[in-house]
Every structure is written in C-alpha cells, then in structure tokens.
C-alpha cells in the first residue's frame, strides 16, 4: 500500500518542496541585501544563482512521480492538442475506426448471441441437443425419446419439446399463438423457477390429454394479461378446450431456441388437443426436439456412446423404425446442426470478413500515420536534436494512435448498440415470433475495447521504423523531406496497401456472388408462381373442428372463396412450399414388403392438396391428370409426383404414370400425374422428390388456402377476410400475399446479401481512401522529380506512369489475390446462397470492373495534381 500512501502524501511533498525553495531564496535575498544590494538586485542575483526555479521544482517533483503514468498523462494531453490541430486527419481516423470497430462489435454480438452464449438457464453450458442419425436431424419420435430418457446413464434429465401453434381464447376472441409443447420434466431439467404460480411437472403427465395446463411467458403475460397477478388458476380455451393457467415464466427465460420465443408452454402429452392429432404413440413419427442436461463428470463423448448403445438395443427391438439409429450431441439453441451448421459457418465467415476489414482499416491508418510522421519529420528531428529519445517520440506517436482508436472504438460501439437494439427487436418473418436477441453484453464491450487497443497499436506501430531511422541533422537541414527510403523496391506500405486491396476484392467478390445468387434464386423456377396469389392460413383445429367435419368445412370455405369477385382459381393444401418446415416421408418401391427405414426408395416431401391446387399455384402439369373431387377416401389412393420423384423411383418420367409405389405402412399408391420440380424447403436445395396426395384421401386440419385473382391484394384481402369471418367468427386465420410469405424462405439469403453488401461497401470505402492516401503521398513526395520530368518534355502518359504506376501495379496484384481468396471464400456462402459460384463471368467481370473503378476514383485527384505540376514554380522554389 506504499504507493497509495505516496499518492496522498505527494501533494504535501510538493507543497513542502515549493516552500523549501521559497525559504531558500528568501534567506539568500536577505543575505544579499545585507551585503548592500537593493531588494530588486538581490532577488535577481538569488534567482540567477539558484537556477530555473520552475524547472528545478519540476525535476524535484519527478522524483516522487511514477514516471510512466504521469508522463502518459502528459503524452495524452499533447496528443489531444496535436489531434485538435489537424481535425481532418482526426475525423478520418475516428470515422474509419468507428465504422470498422462498430461492424466488428455487431458481428461479434451476433456470434455471442447465437453461438457463444449458453442458454439463459442455470448451468446452461451442460445442456446438449440430442440429434438423430447421420443427418444430425433434431427430430426424434416420442417412444424413442421415452426409451432414451429412462435408459440413459449420462444425463440428469432429457426433455422433449416441439414448436407448434394453437388457437388461444382468453376473452372470446381466439387468436393463434406460438407455443412449445414440452415434456413434463421440461422446466425441472432446465432448472427454471416460476415467476408466478407453478410450472407443470412429470407427475402431471398421466396419458393423452391428461394435463390441461399452460404456462405463460413473461412477455405474453405482460402484453395479454397486463401483468395481472391474478391470472394463476384462471381458465382459458386452447382450441376450444379448457386449460388452466399454472404460472408465469421468469422474464429472462425465452425457451431453448435462440431464434424462437414461445408465448406459452403446454404439456406434450396434450398434443392431440393442441395440434389436432397425436403421433406420440408412433415410433416412426419424428419431430420432438430433445435436450439433455449432462451429468457432472460425464463427457459428451461418453454420453454419445451411452446413447448409441441404447440405440443398438432399440434397433434390435424395433427393427422396422429404428434400424441403424444413431445419436449425436450438438449445442442447443439452433435446432442442433440443422440450423447451427450453416449459422456457425456464416457467422464465422462474417467475423472473418469483419476482422479483415478492421485489418484493412489498420493498414490504411498505418499509411496515414506514416505519412503524418513524414510530414512531421521536421518536428521529430527537432525533438531528437533537443535531446528527446526515440523511445519517447515513439511513445508519443503510439499514444496518439491509441487515443484515436479508443475514441473511434467508443463511437463504433455506441453505433453498434443502436443497431443491435434494432436487430434484437426485429421480427423478420411475419406472424411468427422468430427473432434473435443480440443485445451487446460485457463480452462485446471487452472485445471491442481489445480490438480498438490492438488496432491502435497496430497502425501506430507502422511509422516506427521510419522514426527510428530518422537522422535529426538531415531532417533539419533538408526540411520536410521524406524520412523513409523511397528507393527500396517494396516498402511495408506497399504490402499494406496490396493487402487492403485484396481484402476489399474478397468482399466485393463475395457480395457480388451473394447478390448474383439471390438474383438467381429469385429468377429460378420455384415450381410455382407466387405473384397474384393471396394465401390464407387457417387452422380448423383451433376452432374446434375435427374428424369428418374437417373436409366439409374446408370445402365450404373453398366454395365461398371461389365466389368472391375477381378470384380466378382457389385451392388449399395442408402446407405450401417454401414455408417454414416441410414434411418428408419415406416411400417404398411397389415390390418392397418389409417397410423398415433402411429399405425406403426415397424420402419424399409430401403435400396434401385439394383439386385445383396445381392451377392455383401455377405448377406445370407435365403428364397425366391432376386431382378431382372424386379422388376421395372411397377410391384407390393416387398421387401426383414431381420429376425428381419419377426419376428416383421409376428410372424415368415416362414410366411414372400408372406405376405404383408404397407409403409408410405399405399403402399402395398409383401415380396419376407428373408435375415440374420445384423448391420446397429452401431456395438453395438440390432437386428433391416430392409427392402430392389428394387431401380427401389424407385429411388435415392445417389449411393453407391459395387464392389467385386478377385483382390487387388490397382489393381481394378485405373481401377474403369478410368471407371467412362470415363462415365462422371463431376461426383464427392470417392473410398474406404469397410473395410476402416467401420472405421467410428468402430471409437467409437476404440477410447474407445485406451483411455482405454492407461489409463490401465498407471494404470498398476503405480501399478507396487507402489507395487515395498512398497515391496522394506518392505524388506529393515526387513533385520535384515529376516537375523535372515535365520540364524535360515527358508526356502526360509518362508522367502518370511515373507517378501512379506503382499504385496501379499494387491494385492489380491486390485485386488478383483478393479475387482468388474470394473464390475460395464463396465455398462458405454456398450453404445459404443458391448456387453460389464465383465461376460466373458476370461476377468475375464485376469484380475487375469494381476494382478498376475504385482505382480510377481513388487516383483521380492525385493524377490531376501530378499532371498540373508547373515545373517553373517548382524549380523556382529550389
């Protein structure tokens, strides 16, 4: 604590010191006056004899100071003064850094929010998502889950849950809500405590529909119950069934997915009431997501081994469904590797790009700083000549750099906080609580601070060698000439600029690839035409319809809608392509008799559609016929398949019509029609086999109505709404244009293109200023030489080549490297972007053109300056 005491006693020491010196002078003056001097003379003589009072006091004080800290404060003051003197330079540096560090902070927050941060529950890092099979699918059947839950020795608990929707009626006006149906142990295994009331437990599960309870999320409680603490115990209607509100979840708990926020939780055992049908007893029906809390001391690898040994015995017991079943673990939060894989890759890619941009900015600012050091060569030389050490000058320069980087970093973080708030509140998909909380936390701030410090040191260190080599005598004699040796073939600055151009080229390449990919996806054949189609999503289950009522009501809705003026064709299906989720089912060859998974001929995406569907969706019927209302339960099963299905099962499209195949359980289905291939799950998917079954033969309570009309959506929308409401006021539904609904499928591509576009723009801006800086520097350094060249009769082209040839050579080299790197980087993009390929002449040409344009733009002013040199003026100045 000695230093602490020193800190407090120092002020006293300083006072004493001043006092001592004053006493000294007073005594001396008195002595001198005794010798006959006047007071004035004596004072002067005393001071002469004593020396420079201020300096001596300062030096005496230094004894008590911590040399580093206090001289750093002095350095900071000096740096601030210097920076205020050149506001243009300061603004450029701060702005550049603010943008780059801000971009890094945003990307890091994404990384933090989606990847690094464990689930917001106690000991969230011990939670693992259990995935099934080699495809790492997150879905598991309920019986398999029960077996894993009861037989494993590695987990403290395994929970199962599903994302689903239900009609919730709290005040006589039912509306769809998004929820999690969850196993009874859900809250206990996650370790969440209720904010109000209680949660449901394993003990509440006593067979199908035995637990009519719901738990409200905090946000839903606030928005729909006005934070009324009396809700506990109140009865509400879920799909017309009475359910009791048990309690409210704590504010910080948003479920187990980092992108989905359920409004309520309900027990999984009540699936039949909530979803309208139940498949909990079917071992072949996957779809439950499973998360486990690892026991203390058990490694994930051991847990996987444990699970797989259970899997082996399951395969023996249930060869039909579970043959070859295997399990793996993944970080929870992003549906395991299904979303996690691409998201991780994409964010890693973004982080890399953001890092590269910051590096480019550092290169840029490094050039600026060394140009500034060169401009200040006279000042530096003077200080060296006056006895300052090189170390002292370097520290001063570094202080300036770090000060700037901290200011820039602070501004960048402030900007990123605004952006992140907005991002956290953003719901990209209409009607579904998909959003990602990426609020910055302490980690974001620490990382930004470190990045700012590191970049400050990085670009501050660039002019070091220049200063170390500075010769004060030359500096003062020759005036402000360059300190660095311009004749060396490749300088550090050249390398930096080339690197920066390369980074910029990488970014331009990848954003062009992404934009081209998006354009291609938009123009590619979806297998349907979304323009001029309204879609209505109604879940009849939520209004209490079931069983035989369903087809009747659905037909009733369809007929009413068809009568709306302007509607040309309408149809409905259990789901529509490129919406959230799809259902993929095993299909077998007609010759197969053993319907185990391993014997399947393909996994086909299934749509149950009404007659008129292909017309409404504008899907081309290539061969055979479409469905009619005669394809009902009373006649043999039929299907319309796509080209890929035909090729995969029957070898060719011709053979498909009239052929039979079997679906799960062995039902024979005859192919009656062939339609074009389309996109079903994602835009970037490869062609997938798909089958369309008549909805009368496989009824569903989910209803997606497609209404094609020749009127605008503003005209059709309200009449659709009126018609539906007139049919059943208690039916919850949502209306949207199909094009808008497609935003869901395009979301990833849009997000990727946007992010890359922003980063690309940043990169281009940096390259622009970087090239400009170096070109301007190169011209101003060689003004005299260029003047002589002009005086000796050099032509414009030769002058330009002399002045800027090097810059353009660097531009070419950097662009080449960047283009090659960019091509390598697009491999990452192919996860999200449809057919991301850099081997696209337009992309290649675009990159070359963009870089050339950048070069021209950046060198325009320096070139003008080089050309306008008047040798007479220059030579006169000599």
């Amino acid at each position, binding site marked *: 604590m000695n230093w602490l005491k020193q800190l407090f006693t120092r002020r006293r*020491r300083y006072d*004493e*010191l001043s*006092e*001592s*010196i004053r*006493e*000294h*002078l*007073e*005594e*001396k003056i*008195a002595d001198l006056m005794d010798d006959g001097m006047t007071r004035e003379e004596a004072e002067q003589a005393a001071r002469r*004899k*004593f*020396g*420079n*009072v201020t300096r*001596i*006091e300062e*030096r*005496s*004080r*230094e*004894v*008590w100071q911590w*040399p580093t800290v206090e001289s750093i404060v002095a350095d900071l003051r000096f740096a601030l003064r210097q920076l205020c003197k050149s506001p243009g330079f300061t603004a450029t540096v701060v702005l550049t850094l603010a943008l780059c560090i801000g971009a890094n902070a945003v990307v890091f927050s994404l990384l933090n929010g989606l990847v690094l941060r464990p689930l917001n529950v106690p000991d969230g890092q011990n939670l693992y998502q259990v995935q099934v099979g080699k495809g790492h699918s997150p879905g598991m059947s309920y019986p398999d889950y029960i077996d894993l839950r009861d037989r494993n020795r590695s987990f403290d608990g395994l929970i199962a849950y599903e994302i689903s929707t239900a009609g919730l009626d709290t005040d006589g006006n039912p509306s769809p809500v998004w929820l999690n149906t969850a196993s009874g142990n859900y809250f206990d295994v996650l370790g969440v405590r209720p904010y109000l009331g209680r949660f449901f437990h394993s003990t509440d599960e006593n067979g199908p529909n035995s637990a009519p309870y719901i738990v409200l999320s905090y946000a839903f409680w606030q928005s729909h119950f006005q934070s009324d603490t009396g809700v506990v115990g109140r009865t509400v209607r879920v799909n017309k069934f009475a359910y009791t509100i048990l309690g409210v979840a704590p504010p910080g708990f948003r479920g187990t997915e980092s992108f989905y926020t359920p409004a309520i939780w309900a027990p999984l055992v009540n699936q039949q009431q909530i979803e309208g049908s139940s498949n909990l007893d079917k071992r072949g029906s996957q779809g439950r997501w499973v998360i486990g809390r690892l026991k203390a001391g058990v490694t994930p690898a051991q847990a996987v081994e444990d699970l797989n040994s259970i899997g082996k015995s399951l395969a023996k017991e249930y060869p039909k469904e579970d043959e070859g079943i295997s399990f793996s673990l993944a970080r929870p939060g992003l549906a395991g590797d299904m979303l996690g894989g691409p998201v991780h890759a994409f964010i890693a890619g973004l982080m890399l790009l953001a890092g590269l941009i910051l590096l480019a900015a550092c290169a840029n600012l490094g050039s600026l700083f060394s140009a500034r050091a060169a401009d200040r060569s006279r000042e530096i030389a003077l200080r060296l000549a006056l006895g300052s*050490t090189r*170390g*002292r000058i370097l520290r001063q320069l570094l202080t300036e750099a770090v000060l700037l980087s901290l200011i820039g970093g602070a501004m960048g973080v402030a900007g990123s906080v605004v952006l992140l708030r907005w991002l956290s509140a953003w719901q990209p998909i209409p009607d579904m609580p998909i959003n990602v909380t990426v609020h910055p936390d302490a980690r974001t701030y620490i990382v930004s601070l470190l990045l700012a410090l590191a970049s400050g040191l990085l670009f501050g260190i660039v002019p070091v060698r220049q200063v170390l080599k500075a010769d004060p005598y030359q500096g003062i004699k020759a005036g402000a000439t360059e300190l660095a040796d311009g004749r060396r073939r490749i300088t550090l600055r050249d390398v930096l600029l080339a690197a920066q151009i390369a980074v910029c080229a990488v970014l331009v390449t990848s954003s062009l690839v992404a934009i081209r990919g998006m354009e291609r996806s938009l123009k590619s054949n979806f297998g349907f035409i979304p323009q001029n189609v309204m879609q209505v999503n109604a879940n009849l289950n939520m209004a209490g319809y079931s069983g035989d009522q369903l087809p009747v009501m659905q037909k009733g809705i369809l007929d009413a809608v068809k009568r709306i003026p302007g509607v040309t064709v309408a149809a409905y299906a259990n789901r529509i392509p490129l919406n959230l989720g799809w259902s993929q089912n095993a299909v077998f060859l007609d010759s197969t008799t053993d319907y185990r998974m391993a014997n399947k001929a393909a996994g086909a995406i299934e749509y149950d559609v009404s007659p008129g569907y292909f017309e409404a969706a504008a899907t081309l019927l290539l061969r055979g016929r479409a469905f009619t209302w005669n394809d009902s339960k009373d006649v043999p099963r039929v299907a319309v398949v796509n080209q890929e299905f035909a090729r995969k099962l029957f070898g060719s499209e011709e053979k498909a019509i009239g052929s039979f195949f079997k679906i799960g359980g062995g039902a024979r289905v005859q192919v009656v029609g062939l339609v074009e291939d389309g996109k079903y799950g994602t835009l970037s998917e490869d062609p997938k086999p798909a089958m369309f079954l008549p909805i009368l033969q496989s009824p569903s309570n989910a209803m997606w109505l497609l209404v094609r009309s020749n009127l605008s959506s503003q005209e059709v929308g309200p009449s659709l709404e009126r018609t539906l409401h007139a049919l059943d006021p208690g039916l919850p539904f949502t209306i949207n244009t199909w094009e808008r609904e497609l935003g869901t499928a395009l979301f990833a591509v849009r997000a990727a293109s946007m992010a890359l576009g922003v980063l690309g723009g940043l990169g281009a801006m940096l390259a622009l200023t970087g090239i400009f800086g170096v070109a301007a520097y190169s011209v101003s350094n060689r003004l005299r030489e260029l003047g002589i060249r002009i005086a000796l009769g050099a032509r414009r082209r030769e002058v330009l080549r002399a002045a800027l040839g090097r810059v353009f050579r660097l531009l070419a080299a950097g662009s080449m490297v960047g283009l090659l790197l960019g091509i390598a980087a697009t491999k990452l993009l192919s996860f999200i972007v449809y057919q991301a390929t850099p081997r696209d002449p337009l992309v290649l040409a675009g990159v070359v053109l963009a870089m050339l344009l950048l070069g021209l733009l950046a060198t325009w002013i320096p070139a003008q300056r080089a050309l306008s040199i008047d040798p007479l003026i220059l030579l006169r100045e000599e």
Partner: protein
Amino acid sequence: MKKKRPEYRDLFPGALELMILKSLSWRPMHGYALAQRLTDISEDYLQIEEGSLYPALQRMLKAGWLETEMGLSARNRPVRIFKVTEAGRKHLEQELASVEKMFAGVTRVLALAGQ
C-alpha cells in the same frame, strides 16, 4: 530513462549525495545553509546552481536517508531542516568505505601507471 543531469559534473555518480549526507550528518541544515556550506567547504571548486541540490534532496528523502522537520534559520525564520536518518547514516558509512577503497585503488594505479 535515468539520464545523467548535466548540472552535476560530479567526480563520480553519487558524489553529490555523499557530500550532502556528510554535511547534514555534521549538522541538520535547511537548503540555503546546505548550499552555502557545500560552496564554502569546496572553496568554489564545485560550481553548481544552488537549485540543483533540490532534486538530489528529494531523491534522498524518497530513499529514506533524510527527513525534514521545522526549525529556525540563522535569521530566526521558520524553515524546513533536512536531517540524516538512521538509514542515511548507514548508507553514508557504506559509501564512504567504498569510496575510500576506490580512491586507494585509483591512487595506486596512478602512481604505478607511469613507471
């Protein structure tokens, strides 16, 4: 970055401190008296700015060889008196011993070098 102060062109590093310690251990003094004493005894041999005593005094205060207390000057004014501490006395003894040894060595070398 300890730089040699150009003001004390000392015989050897620490000579000024040694002289201050020696003087003050003879009698505690305030700054002006100390400066006068040093000039007197060296018979103007040491031409130093009086002020340059002060950084040295502060260093020695910090090292704990000296302490200050209030006292009276020759003109009966209240002044700060510098006094040698126990640690200072020990340091002085050590330094004197090593200086004597050094001088003996130097004298010996000088005496023999010419032969």
